Structure formats: C-alpha cells, structure tokens
C-alpha cells in the first residue's frame, strides 16, 4: 500500500454525496401522497373487515323497503330498487373492484415487464418480433380491444379482468423495454458479463433490480386506470353480472333511476372517484419518491435571472471592464443553503484573457454563470458580492436590464454545443435571433450579418451551412456556431465555459487558435473556464486557481505555473503529466505523495 493512496482517499472523501432520505420518508413527507396512502389504508382495512362488520347481506332483496333514502333507519345509505342495503353493497362492490383492478394490474405488470425485459435485453430479431406484436395491440384505441375481447369471451367479471390486463400489457412492455435497452448498454452490464455472469443471471440480478422501481411506478400510476376501466366495463353491463356487483355495475344499475333516485348511482360513483383519486395521489407520490431526478428537485422551473439576495454589495474602485468583488453564490437545499462560490474577487480588462481553473466542485462554472445571473434558480441564489460591468453593478439592475446586457456587452460560449444549441432551429436562425435580440435590423440584414459572422469563425460554405440543424454538424463546426452567436453583437467580454472540453484534441487546437485570433482582432476580454492546465498555459494571460469555491491563487499565468505559491496549486501542477517527462512523471507523483504524507 503506497502512501499516495491515503492522501487521495482523504481528499475525495470530502465530496462524497451525503446520505439521502429513504423512499418511505420522502413518500410520507409528501402531504398529498400520505393522504392518499391513509385513505387507501382505511379502504383496504374496511374491505378486509367487511365480513365481520354488522352489515346486512348485500344480495337480500326486500321490495317493501325499496329506494329508501339516505340515513333511513337500518339503511345508512338507503336501499336500491330491489330494496338491497346500499352500504352493504358498497362494501362488497368496493372489494370486488379493488381485487379485480389490482389483479389485472399485477397480471399486466408481470407479462408486460417480462416482454419488455426480454425484448430490451435480447434486442435484434426477438426484440423486433415482440415489439411489433406490442405495436399491434397499441394500435387499438385503448378500451376498444378490451371490448372486442369481452365480445368474444362473453360478458363476465373474469373476462373483463383478462381483457383489461391484456390491454395494459403493451404499456408495461414499452416502458420496461425502453429502460432495459438503456441499462443493457451500460458499463456495469458489460462488467457483469466479464465477471462470468450468464444472460439470465444478468437480467435477473443486474437489470431487474434497476428496473423494479420503474415497474412499481408504472403499476402505481396504472392501478387507478385499471379500476376505472373494469368499473367501466361493468357499467356497460359487460363485467360483473347480477347478482354479483362491483362499483361499476352498481352505477350502471342505478343509472336507470337517475331522475327518481340519483343517490343510488351517485354513491358508488363517488366511491370509485375516492378510490381512484387516492390511488393516483399515492401513485404520484411513489413516482416522485422513486425517481431520482425528481428527488434532486430537478423539475423546478428556473427563472429568467438567478434569485438575488445579497447580504452585502461591496464597491470597488477598479475600472476594468469586468470587476467581481466578493461574489458568493449558494444553493438552496433541504438542509438550508450551502455556498458553492465563497466570496471570490477578480477583474478582467479589455483585450485580456483570464483563466479560471479548478477541479470538479471548485465552483468555476457557477462563478461564470453567476456573472449575468444564469445560475438556475431554484436552487441557485446570489448571496453576496458585486459584479460590475463598466462600473455598473449587475445585481443591482432590474431584470430587463440584466437580460439586455446578455449577449450584448457580455456573451457566453458553453461547453457541449450539441446540447447548448436548440435542436429544432437551424444554426443560421439561431444566430440571426441573437443578432435581432439586440439590434433593430431587418431579417435580411440580420441574415447577412450572420453570414459575416460565420465567415469570421471560418465556417466553410456559410450560405449552405446556415440552413443546417445542429445535429447535422460536427462538434467543431457546432462550437464555431456557438462562437459566432457569442460575437453577434460585438460584445466586449466573452465568457467561455469549458468551450473545448467536449472536443477532440485536434479540433480543440483549432478552436483555441480561433478564439485567440478573434480576441486579438477585436480586442475582446476573455474569461476562460477550464480544468486543463495545458489550455490555460496556451491562451491565458492571467490565471486564477479555484478550490471549494475560493480562489486559492491568482496571477500572471507563467508565474503561477512555473512558481506556484499555494500548496494546492503546487500539488495540482505536479499531478499534470508534461510532454517529454515520460515515466519520470509517476516517480514524481510518488515522491510528492510521500512528502504530503510525512509533512
């Protein structure tokens, strides 16, 4: 065991994610879901206890007592047209409806998931045959196929159950197949194969545990439907046959009395509604609790400008184009707000390139996005500091003023141009839009301006490429479009957030050269965010090294790189292999690790 490893483990422990609340806790924290759960619990308990409750026989007719109103003596909910006690019938009907709905859902989930797992894992011909079959079933309007099946098998509760189950199989099969295809291509499945696992073992022990939550989610969101649909078939007289009754058939029988005794049909209808509603509430809760994306609160809608709630707004005498003073950006979480950027300051002057370098979690991208309030909020909040552009405090401006600044004075270039360009608009239109956002010029003038920009970023054949969609271009071309978009309104400052990280080295070299040229030609100030010391060495005049939301060291690039002052910078630079260093590099790392260990 080498000494190097202990330092490393100690270091990375800090960014290990905190413990998450369990799914059950999440479910119970959700008021609506908890309400749904308790209503369902009561209903299920009543269904189980029904035989021992002091209720009359639901099937005993008594014409003398027919159509007794609600709250009559001995019949709390009255009686129906044959004098049967509605409360008793409601309880037995509820039980039938629940059992049938849940059974149908279990059957559909089992066969659907099985088909989905097999098709998604096997792919190829098996997948094709199975999914074409499923497509055929899906090609029927939902309830129509169930009707056709009942038509052939004959009316009856059991037949209705089969019909509803069959109709819902495709839903599960499609969902589960989609997830399985994704999982089967994941590295851990390949790794399991190399660990000697066979196909069946992989499906059952590697894939199924990951699919199970999805099956549960799908079930919890479909049980409600299935209860509705079985009730529907019974309502039409195609499900439960007299004297057996479920809620649907009670409603169907009561329908003929709608005008004289509406309560006979309203009571079972309301009951169906309560059951399905509480199942849906519970189902939504289950989905939210099991879906990790929702857990992270990812679905909150981000606002136009990051929420600003500053403790202090310090002023600076610095007259540079961009001056950042004590910037603090935090993220709201369940356990209060935690700062991601902890009071950093730097400035950037015209024609200058400042590199902001750091490892993941250092807060460098959050810093970049904070400058014009582009941090998604919620959960982001600017909790302190000032960003001054031409001496004006950005966070003191009104929302429209900040928006007006974006792309005009300060423009952004982002990391992966495939996800940062809109997939459904042509690249030409997207750049034209950027031009017209700030310049009141005609569409044709804007188009001409866009073509000029495309030439400036060396996109070959711009007239033709302007009509291409992002997915039709290579990564390097897309990033050129991203740069053209940033240049659209002759900004003074460009903030480039890891603009070459998603690109191949040779393409990266071209893009860096382009940025460098443009900067010199146009006198741009460039804030360059990266994790790569090589890139910093190549294009930045000055560099600021970030760690855990703070700038640990800043200065002239060459000085910082050749003579780092802070321990962290020293260690970081020592960890970058240099060309020509060869195997010497690992020996150095070993020594460094030993030193850190001893000192």
């Amino acid at each position: 065991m080498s000494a190097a490893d202990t330092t490393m483990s100690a270091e990375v422990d800090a960014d290990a994610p905190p413990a998450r609340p369990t799914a059950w806790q999440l479910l119970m924290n959700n008021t609506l879901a908890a309400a749904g759960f308790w209503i369902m619990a009561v209903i299920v308990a009543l269904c189980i206890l029904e035989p021992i409750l002091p209720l009359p026989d639901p099937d005993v007719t008594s014409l003398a007592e027919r159509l007794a109103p609600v709250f009559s003596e001995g019949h709390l909910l009255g009686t129906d047209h044959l004098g049967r006690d509605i409360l008793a019938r409601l309880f037995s009907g509820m039980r039938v409806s629940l059992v049938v709905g849940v059974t149908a859902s279990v059957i559909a989930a089992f066969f659907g998931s099985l088909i989905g797992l097999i098709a998604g894992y096997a792919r190829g011909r098996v997948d094709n045959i199975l999914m074409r079959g499923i497509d055929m079933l899906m090609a029927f309007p939902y309830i129509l196929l169930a009707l056709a099946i009942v038509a052939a098998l004959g009316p009856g509760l059991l037949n209705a159950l089969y019909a509803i189950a069959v109709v819902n199989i495709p839903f599960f099969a499609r969902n589960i197949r989609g997830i399985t295809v994704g999982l089967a291509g994941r590295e851990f499945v390949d790794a399991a194969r190399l660990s000697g696992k066979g196909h069946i073992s992989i499906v059952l022990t590697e894939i199924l545990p990951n699919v199970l939550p999805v099956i549960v989610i799908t079930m919890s969101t479909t049980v409600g439907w299935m209860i509705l649909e079985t009730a529907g078939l019974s309502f039409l007289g195609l499900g439960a046959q007299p004297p057996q009754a479920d809620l649907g058939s009670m409603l169907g029988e009561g329908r003929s009395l709608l005008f004289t005794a509406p309560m006979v049909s309203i009571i079972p209808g309301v009951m169906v509604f309560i059951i399905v509603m509480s199942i849906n509430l519970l189902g939504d809760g289950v989905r939210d609790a099991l879906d990790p994306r929702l857990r992270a609160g990812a679905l909150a809608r981000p606002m136009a400008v990051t929420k600003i709630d500053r403790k202090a707004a310090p002023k600076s005498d610095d007259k540079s184009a961009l001056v950042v003073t004590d910037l603090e950006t935090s993220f709201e979480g369940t356990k209060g707000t935690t700062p991601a950027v902890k009071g950093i300051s730097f400035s950037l002057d015209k024609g200058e390139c400042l590199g902001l370098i750091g490892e993941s979690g250092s807060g460098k991208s959050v810093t970049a996005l904070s400058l014009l309030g582009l941090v998604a909020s919620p959960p982001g909040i600017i909790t302190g500091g000032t960003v001054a552009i031409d001496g004006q405090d950005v966070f003191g401006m009104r929302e429209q003023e900040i928006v007006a600044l974006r792309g005009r004075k300060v423009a952004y270039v982002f990391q992966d141009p495939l996800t940062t360009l809109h997939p459904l608009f042509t690249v030409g239109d997207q750049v034209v839009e950027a031009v017209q956002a700030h310049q009141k010029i005609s569409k044709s003038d804007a188009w001409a301006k866009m073509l000029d920009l495309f030439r400036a970023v060396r996109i070959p054949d711009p007239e033709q490429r302007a009509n291409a969609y992002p997915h039709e271009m290579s990564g390097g071309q897309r990033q050129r479009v991203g740069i053209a978009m940033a240049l659209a309104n002759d900004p003074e400052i460009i903030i480039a957030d890891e603009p070459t990280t998603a690109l191949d080295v040779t393409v990266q070299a071209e893009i860096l050269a382009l940025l460098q040229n443009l900067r010199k030609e146009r006198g741009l100030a460039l804030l360059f965010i990266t994790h790569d010391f090589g890139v910093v060495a190549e294009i930045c005049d000055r560099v600021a090294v970030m760690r855990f939301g703070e700038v640990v060291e800043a200065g002239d690039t060459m000085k910082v790189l050749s003579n780092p002052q802070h321990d962290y910078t020293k260690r970081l630079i020592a960890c970058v292999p240099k060309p020509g260093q060869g195997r010497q590099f690992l020996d150095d790392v070993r020594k460094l690790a030993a030193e850190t260990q001893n000192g």
Partner: protein
Amino acid sequence: MADRQAAIEITNLTKIFGGNRTLFGGKTHEIHAVKNLTMTLHHGETLAIVGESGSGKSTIARMIVGLETPTSGSMKIAGQDSSELAREGAAAFGRKIQYVFQDPVASLNPRKTIGKILEAPLRLLKGYDSAKCKARMKELMDAVSMPADALQRYPHEFSGGQAQRIAIARALAAEPDIMVLDEPVSALDVSVQAQVLLLLEDLKAEFDLSYLFISHDLAVVESISDRVAVFYFGELVEEGSAAELFASPNHEYTKKLIASAPRLEIE
C-alpha cells in the same frame, strides 16, 4: 509461430458495423470501425492505443474482451484463440482478461453493494467459497487502498476516484493476465488521475499484468506506456516505443496530434 511472450496477438482484425440487409434488399450504411489490424501486446508491457473519436479504439478493446464479435481476423488472448474463448462463453474471457471502463460510476451497479459486486467474479470465475471470497475481498480492497468497510456500501457513496479504484479491484478479482484500461482516468480530476495512474503502475508490477491502455490524452499516455499505437479512422497509422514516437513522430496524423495537444511546459 506463436510468440511465447505475447499476451495478445491480433491478426488481420476487422470490424464492420451496419451493412445489414434491409426489407427491400438494400443494405444499411456500413461503418468500418477497425480495418485489418495486426498488432501484438507483449507480456508485461503497457501498450497504449491513442486516437480521437471515431478512431475505433474502443471497438478494438471491446473485441479483445469478447464484448463485440470481430467481422473477420483472429486474436490470441494469453495463448488461446479468441473464437475458442467465445465458444466457452464470457467467463472464459473474464478469467484471462479484464476491462476497466471510462466512467467508473456507470460501471458499478447502483443497486448492489461493493461486496456483492466483487463477489461475482470471485465466485463465478475463481469458484471460491464464501470464506475465501471474504478474505479475497479484503485483500483486494487493500490492494487498491480502500477501507474494508467500503464493502458494505453502495456505489453512490463514493467519489469518481474511489469508484474507479473499486472497478479496478473488481477487475483484479478475476486474477487476469491482461487488463484493458479504456480511458480509465479521463473522467477524473487531475489530482485523482495521477493517483489512479500510480496505482495502476504499482498493481502491474505486483500482479504481473500486461496493460492495453486506451486514451486520447497524449501526456497521460507518455507517462505510463512502453509502446504506443496511433489510430486514425479505424487504421493503425503508427506504432513504436513511447520515447521514440513522441520524440520523432513519422506519420502526419501523429505529428498533428502531438502538435495539437495543449502543453504545460514549465522551465
């Protein structure tokens, strides 16, 4: 004429994706991912495969460990023909050669504890009983400098660097002769990257391994490899010892690649 020193011998290996017949008798678009490759990984050496996206480097790696079937050509893995291994099944490959993936988090099943993950190769490939499994797991955790209590924890509780150590431990569990390292440090921060490289270097000596090291990062490659093979659109364009190749590249593409790499040179 088998080279006794060869860990992997690849002869005329080709992989074509697509080209399936369609319903109307046409053919789908063909992609020649690997073109007629002949290459040898010697016992005990680290051979780096370098190339950009679309160079076919990952396809080569996946074929070598049996996750992808070659269109034509042959491979000998630790002296045994790969088609024989393929007939015996994935386990046969797994005993001789293991794979470390680029994304360490994706390579660990999120719903299994580290202990469960390590148990699979120990039981299925080595046939150890549970006492032996337990003992080996502790040794493996020790070898990759992870605490033994990590065995009871789930993958999401670890950082990228730790997850990659666990993935390396899983590969070691099979006691393979050869490891294919597919961009093993690309997803990691520089400080963590250096530590993992060092770990790999130490493990190689300790367990007498041969490495096929796939990377797009020339500086990393230079620091760990004995020989380097440069790929461009599925073709091997240049091969040579690391020192020579970086000092005086011959092929145009290699020159361009080396010139493009951002360099941190401090005097």
